[in-house]
Structure formats: C-alpha cells, structure tokens
C-alpha cells in the first residue's frame, strides 16, 4: 500500500544576500520526501545548512527556488498570512530552548496555537488538558514556565506542538538544553507519540546517537544531502 507523502521537496535552493558580492548559496538543491507516520532525523554539523532547511520545512522561510509541498499545500507561492495559517495548522514546533510564553501557565501555552486557529474556548481547554495528560504534565497545568524544570517545559512544548493535530512535528535539537536523563525522557516521549499516535516527526540534530534512534537518517553537508540510511527506530 502506497503511503501518503507529507513532505515533498524538489530541488530546493536558498541563497542569502542575493545580488550582492556576498551572495551565499546555503542550500544547493535538496530533494526530500517524508511519508506519513515516519520518524526522520536530519543530521548535519553547524554551517551545513541544517537550520535553513529546517526554517523552510517549518514554513518560516520560503526557498529561493524549487518546489515544496507540505501535506498537499504548495508552500513556494504562499503569502505571509497563508504561511502563518500553514504553520498553525500543519506544523508543530519543538525548540531547543522550549520557547514557552512567559508568565502564561502551561494550559494557556498549550491553548495558544488553538487560539490562533480560532477554536472555541471550551473545546480548546478540553483538548489542552488532554494533551498535557498525554505528555504526563496533567498535574502541573496551572504552573508557569518559570516554575517548571527543563524537561517539564519541553514536555509542555511538545503538548503545544500537537495542539492543532499538525501534519508534522518539527523538533529542533529538542534535547540540546537538557541533561542526558531528561533528554532520554523527551526522546521516549517522541517514540511514544510516534508509535501510539502515528505522528510524523522530523528531528533536527547534530548528534549521531540521537539520529540513530529514528527510522531514517538524512545527512546534509554544505547544503547538499550526502547520505541517507535506515536507523534502528528504537530507543537505545
């Protein structure tokens, strides 16, 4: 049975400082296909173009040339407000630095994407509570980010990423700021979401060990894909 393609990138190029002496081509023609329910790692050293690629996958930026279709929506031609809607509906971000909204409790943080998605209040609160229970933060819903540990913050951030049931969860070095133990817990949570809920997860990392846990590892260097291989798909 043919699996649904969630991300379809063809010949993606991205240049900065276009038309100046310092013109810099960061991505030099990237082709990636990600299927629904996959757990994929994108690995690369710093300066490899990994972050730029992530920004384009996350619809925070548009490619200079090439085609990008996300969940059957063409991103290449989208306007600012359309990109906002795409980020809201199709992508769940998990950042290295959590980026929870300060002075706003866990519940409200998880509600935030649904607020921008114009989901009515009652439904929003119910869904947010359910998600916080899923990530094991059900008993800390009213806590402010300042009152949570790093691992707890990241779990709230993961719950927030799933709020609008996005096509992909895009995790950028999600364990980068955590110690190995809590980092392990966060990775286990991703495995759990992948297995139990069939989420499509894209993990951006520079760590080969973490990448090894995913099903497929895409390595980029100098703006090009230099390798693609299968991973264990299991927590180590």
């Amino acid at each position: 049975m043919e699996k649904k393609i969630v991300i379809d990138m063809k010949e993606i190029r991205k240049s900065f400082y276009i038309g100046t002496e310092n013109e810099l081509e960061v991505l030099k023609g990237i082709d990636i296909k990600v299927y629904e329910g996959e757990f994929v790692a994108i690995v690369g050293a710093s300066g490899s173009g990994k972050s730029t690629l992530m920004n384009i996958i996350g619809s925070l930026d548009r490619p200079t040339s090439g085609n990008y279709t996300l969940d059957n929506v063409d991103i290449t031609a989208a306007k600012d407000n359309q990109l906002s809607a795409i980020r809201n509906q199709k992508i769940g971000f998990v950042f290295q630095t959590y980026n929870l909204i300060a002075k706003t409790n866990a519940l409200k943080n998880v509600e935030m994407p649904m607020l921008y998605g114009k989901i009515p209040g009652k439904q929003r609160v119910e869904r947010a509570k359910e998600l916080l229970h899923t990530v094991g933060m059900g008993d800390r819903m009213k806590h402010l980010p300042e009152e949570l540990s790093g691992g707890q913050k990241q779990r709230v951030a993961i719950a927030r990423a799933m709020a609008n049931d996005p096509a992909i969860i895009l995790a950028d070095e999600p364990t980068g700021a955590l110690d190995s133990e809590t980092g392990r817990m966060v990775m286990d949570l991703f495995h759990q979401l992948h297995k139990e809920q069939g989420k499509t997860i894209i993990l951006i990392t520079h760590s080969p060990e973490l990448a090894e846990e995913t099903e497929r590892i895409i390595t980029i260097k100098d703006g090009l894909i230099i390798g693609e291989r299968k991973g264990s798909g299991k927590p180590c």
Partner: protein
Amino acid sequence: MLVYENIRLALFSLKANKMRALLTMLGIIIGIASVIAIMTVGNSITTYVSDTMASMGASNITVGLQQKEEEKESTKEGMSFGGRQRMKSATEDDYFTREMLKNYCEIYADSIMAISAQETIGSGKITEGNLYANISFSGVSLGYFLANDMSLLEGRFFSEKETEDGKMVAIVSDKVVNNLYDGDKEKALGSIFQANINDKFYSCTIVGIYEYEQSAMGFSSSSEKDITTSVYVPLKAAQNANHTTGYSQFTVVTKTGVNADEFASNTERFFSTYYRKNKDFGPSAYSMSSMVESLTEMMSTITLAISIIAGIALLVGGIGVMNIMLVSITERTREIGTRKALGATNGSIRLQFIVESIVICIIGGIIGIILGIIMGSVAANLMDTPASPSVGSIILSLTFSMAIGVFFGYHPANKAAKMDPIEALRYE
C-alpha cells in the same frame, strides 16, 4: 475572542511590571486628573453661581459707583479689572441722592418693580437681662425683601409711614426670638429691645419676624446660640443714624418681561447725566445675568488654559507609553517569534500590542478620573460648593485615553508585527 485574550494578557504583563506600568501611566494620570478636577470645580462653581443668581433674581440690576479712569471713559463692565490708578473711596458727595432715585423711579416706573437699598449700621448685641443675641444691624428699603425673596413668619413689613419717617421699627430673625423671648413670637411682636452697636444704643420695636436661613457661603463656626443674624430697620432710620442721605449702591428689581441687560445700560445712562461733573466717580449698572455670563466666561477661559496644559501632559504621557511599548516589544522579541511560529498572523501580533497600549492608557485614564473627581470634590468642598463631576468629561477622557493608546501604540505594534519570525526566534 482574541481581543479578550489580549486584554487578559495585557493585564498580566502590567501586573508583572507594576512600577514600570505606574510610571508609564503617570503622564496620562496627571493629564486626565487635571482635566477632570478643573471640570468638576468649574462645573460646581458655574452651577452654584447660576443657582444663587437665579434665586436672587437674574432680572436684578445692581447699580453702584465706579472710579473713572483718567483718560478714557470708564468701561461699561462693572467687574472689569482695568489698569486703575490710585483707588479712592467714594464720599458722601459722590453717593446717589434720594432726589436722583426718585426721578429714576418716576421715569422708569414701567420697568421697576422695587428698589432694594441697604445702609449698614454695624454689628453688635441685643441684651435683655441675662439674655443676648448677636446681630448685624442695617436699614433696608422695602424692595430689599422682594429682591431677596424673603417672607415673614409672623408680623408685617414696614408701613409707608414708618419708611417715610425713618421710625425705629425692626424685623428680626426667629433666632433672636428664640434667644430673647424663649421662642414666643406673640410676645416678641410689639416688644421694644435695646441694641448695642459699637457702644451706641438703639431702641426698636419688633414688627416682624423672618426665618433665618443659613447661607451656603457662610461659616457655621459659631454655635446655634451665638449665631449672628440680621436685624432690619427702615432705610431712612439707618441713614439718620449714620448721618447720611445718599446711597453708595442699590439693587433694582425689574418687572417681568423687562430685558435686564438693556435696562442696565439705560440705567447707567440715566445716572451718568448726574455725574458729568464728578471727576472721580461715575455710575455703573450691571444685571445679574451679565455677571453670570462674565463669570462663566472667566471659568471657560481657565478651563481652556488648564486643558491645554493637560493636553501637553497627555502628549508627554503618550510618548511615554510609546517608549515603554518599544522597550516591551524588544524584550519580548522571542515571544513574538514564538507566537509567529505557532501561527500568529502579523495582524494578530499588531492587535495584541495595540490592545496592550490601550489597556495601559485606559487604566491610566480611569485612575486619572478617580483622582480628578477626588481633587475636584475636595476643592469644591473647600469653596463650599456642591461637587458635580460632569459625565461628559468622563466619557471624553476615556475616549481620549483610548485614542492615545491607539495612536502611540500603533508604531510599536506595527514594528512587532513586521518582525521576521526567524530572526525573532534567534534573538537572545
């Protein structure tokens, strides 16, 4: 829905930075408070004055003497504060004479209802054995009672003959009756009392009793028993006592339907003919309504001046709000980036910060209104006028603070909305 969330959010961030919020709002608080305070005071004064004037009769004309200016003719306004030379006081020779008044009454008989004139003898005491009453003793024309809308509890006003002859008959207050005759009005009427005014003794027969009303402007410092009330005798009696025949000032009660302003200038013209040769003094006549008018005019000038100052305070306050909003969005760059990553459109980011700016301004406005009403009420109380904050100015202030919020919040909000999400997320 988003607006409600934004208001909640704005209140949160204000609560988190109380001191900063207060300092930011200060300009707006001061601006709004001074507008409201001055409006409250101005309103109270204007209302009070017009009420008082109306009760005294807006159709009354006050005629008095006014020092002539050396070069120019004296200005018509009785209340103008021109550049006067040395002040002189009018003497017996300058006063209006009975003759003048008589002619005046004959010529304008159609317009005049009564003439109210007063001649003060002085303040003192009536003693009756151990009993006493404090009084101020003055002679008045019959028109005085009409002009001041006074009526008697008991007895009668002066008769024609008593007025003509300057007999020592008196109309006293009920307080005097309480103090001297144990409140027995029957007993008081017809009694003769001795009044000691500046060591001179006057004996009078009581013919009428009026009800004492505490005037709103008066002080109530003295106890009930020590209160000073007026005792009135016929005008001529007082003039005889003071060895004078003229009037320095009197009030004309016009008949209904007479235009008081017009009649005031007629009156002034009439008396001017008598004063052509007088180097120092001339007559001045003004109606109550023109007094009210000039007072209202003065109040609105003061209000305008303070409003301009308040406007400047509000402008400075608005700039303060803009400044703090710019600081706030810089501090919250990452938050803005995160919100954008979560799907906030430029529009919703802009809305968020404009709402925040409006909330700051409106809270500042509300504090200002409360402070203004308190200050205005205190001031009105000190002046013994009832405080009446105007609803219009409160609504205007709220609308104005909201407008400041939008105006000074737009630029920072727009700056936030236009941030690049990638840069914003990377901001340290």
